[in-house]
């Protein structure tokens, strides 16, 4: 840390910090396995339209309440007269209803799981981008400028921090779902997926901005900042040209862990009905509807929740490995821990 990454000339023996980190990461087999799992999950979600069109021959929201499906020689009802959906057929019907149907409506669970994954991942990734961008800018400005700017930002973060995250998310989710959001000429309707993205992106900011601010406060006393100021660099130049490059490794780690955390938050919000709105569905909202029939069809709860667990787990493990690789003698370890994986910022 504290070293600006230098472009490395191929063939020289000196290695930049990024290359060293890459080598350390490559040796960490558990972290690589986690990355592999995560990429697999992303591909699984991306393949949704392909599977829907070519294998399952149905969309995520298409209902099959009275349809029959041919398994081998017999015809089976997708939803029996008592409303019990068909269980996993695997390739019994050529991949249709691979994981069975999702309840009374008889929608294809596999297709829904894939499309739900798209929603969950999309929200997790884009809200983490929002959180990270806001947190870095706020942390940089507050940490470098100090004075009243810092006081204002820090108190603002305190206010957001003091809200129980899930409550704030729900409060915003409910309020915005009623009338949508209007910022100047931009109008977002209440059912839009942008609403949960913005909410989750916003409420997580303090958990990342605080530790980044702390790190900026430590960095600004370093000689290279003094040198830059002495050379006549302006405030913006110092913040984004000198301080930011030194924060990258922290930011990357936070970003990874933040995706995991935001996905849990999204799942919690959607579970409570304050996140994704129908007809969109995410893994969280799928668990929510699965729980209603958990005693007759437990798979409908286990599968989407298991996907959330697997995704969040892979991100957490990879994020840990990334931190160890980027910053082996991590002094920010505790701060990273208390900052981002802080359960007060998690949906319980």
């Amino acid at each position, binding site marked *: 840390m504290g070293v600006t990454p230098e472009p490395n000339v191929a063939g020289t023996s000196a290695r930049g910090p990024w290359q060293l980190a890459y080598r350390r990461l490559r040796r960490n087999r558990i972290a690589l396995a986690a990355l592999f799992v995560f990429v697999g999950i992303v591909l699984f979600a991306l393949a949704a339209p392909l599977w829907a069109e070519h294998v399952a021959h149905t969309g995520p929201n298409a209902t099959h309440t009275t349809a029959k499906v041919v398994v081998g020689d017999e015809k089976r009802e997708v939803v029996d007269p008592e409303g019990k959906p068909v269980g996993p057929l695997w390739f019994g019907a050529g991949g249709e209803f691979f994981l069975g149907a999702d309840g009374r409506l008889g929608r294809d669970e596999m297709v829904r799981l894939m499309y739900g994954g798209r929603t969950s991942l999309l929200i997790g990734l884009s809200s983490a981008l929002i959180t990270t961008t806001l947190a870095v800018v706020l942390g940089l400005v507050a940490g470098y400028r100090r004075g009243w700017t810092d006081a204002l930002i820090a108190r603002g973060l305190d206010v957001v921090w003091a809200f129980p995250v899930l409550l704030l998310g729900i*409060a915003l989710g409910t*309020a915005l779902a009623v*009338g949508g959001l209007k910022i100047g000429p931009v109008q977002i309707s209440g059912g839009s997926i942008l609403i949960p993205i913005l909410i989750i992106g916003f409420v997580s900011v303090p958990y990342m901005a605080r530790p980044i601010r702390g790190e900026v406060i430590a960095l600004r006393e370093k000689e290279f900042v003094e040198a830059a100021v002495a050379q006549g660099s302006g405030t913006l130049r110092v913040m984004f040209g000198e301080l930011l490059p030194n924060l990258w490794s922290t930011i990357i780690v936070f970003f990874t862990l933040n995706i995991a955390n935001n996905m849990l938050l999204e799942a919690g919000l959607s579970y409570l009905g304050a996140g994704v709105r129908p007809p969109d569905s995410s893994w969280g909202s799928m668990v929510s509807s699965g729980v209603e029939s958990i005693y007759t069809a437990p798979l409908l*709860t286990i599968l989407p929740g298991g996907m959330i667990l697997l995704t969040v787990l892979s991100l957490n493990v990879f994020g840990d490995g990334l931190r160890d690789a980027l910053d082996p003698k991590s002094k920010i370890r505790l701060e990273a821990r208390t900052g981002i994986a802080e359960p007060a910022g998690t949906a*319980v």
Partner: protein
Amino acid sequence: MARFVLRRLVAMALVLFAISVLVFLIFNVIPNSDPAQRMAGKNANPQLVANITQDWGFDEPLPVQYVETMRKIFTGDLISYNTQLNVDQRILEGIPATFSLCIGAALIWLFFGIVFGYLSALRAGGPTDRLLTVAAVIGVSIPVFWLAAIFLYLFTFKLHLFPATGYVPLTEDPIQWANHLALPWVTLAVLFIGFYSRVLRSNMLDSMDEDYVRTARAKGLGERQVAIRHVLRNSLIPIVTLFGLDFGALIGGGALLTESIFSLGGVGEYAVEAIETGDLPPIMAVTLYGAFFVVLFNTLVDIAYAYLDPRVRLGSAAQ
């Protein structure tokens, strides 16, 4: 010290004021629809909407409405739009369940979090450590409501070990009280056990290299004594901070997923009910109630820190 406490208390009041304004704005400015319209329903006639607007004072200027709402919250006159029941009353009724859940879960997670973290750190790199690390990472990655659903399926539906849901007051039947809360306690504790054990582990590993640990060994203390009296004790300070914040958030109704899936009828579940019916006054009151506890415990932690470590209060006095 007294000045420090006073300053923290003033800051706390300011943060709460800011939060109350924020909550109020969330419900009155951002949704560009009329609260009277929401209350009257989608197909209400204009006269009804006008009457409601008149009765509830939605036509007053926003600052007047704000003061009025806050007055109602603090005098206990706030009425739910949907059920027409008293909001503060319902929050008070929910407090025993919420407190029972949080205190029980906190005892479990502190105990196991500290034991697991301690064992992990002492045997760092060994099989025990690896096993506990894997368990901890899984613990922090599980969606709580999903874990709750799986527990209910396994332990009540399949094995019939615990009653399904609901809350029995402690004063009514202590055994049923514990029986009904066992699953919620464990569900809520899992995440925190994972998190606390990891924080404690890394703190202990950090402090094992410190000079005072070497000194303790040099003066002839046994490994066990060094580990418990020196390493563990010092590593527990950040745990205390974390605990203050987490506990504050949960007591404030933060465990609303756990509360609602187990139908405990606590404050958090009240918030969820209010959300499902779009009932705004309870959401506002519960948010404020929750924020109060978060800010309160935040302040308590700061004060405790200043008491334990004079550098903190001198540091902020210098600012």
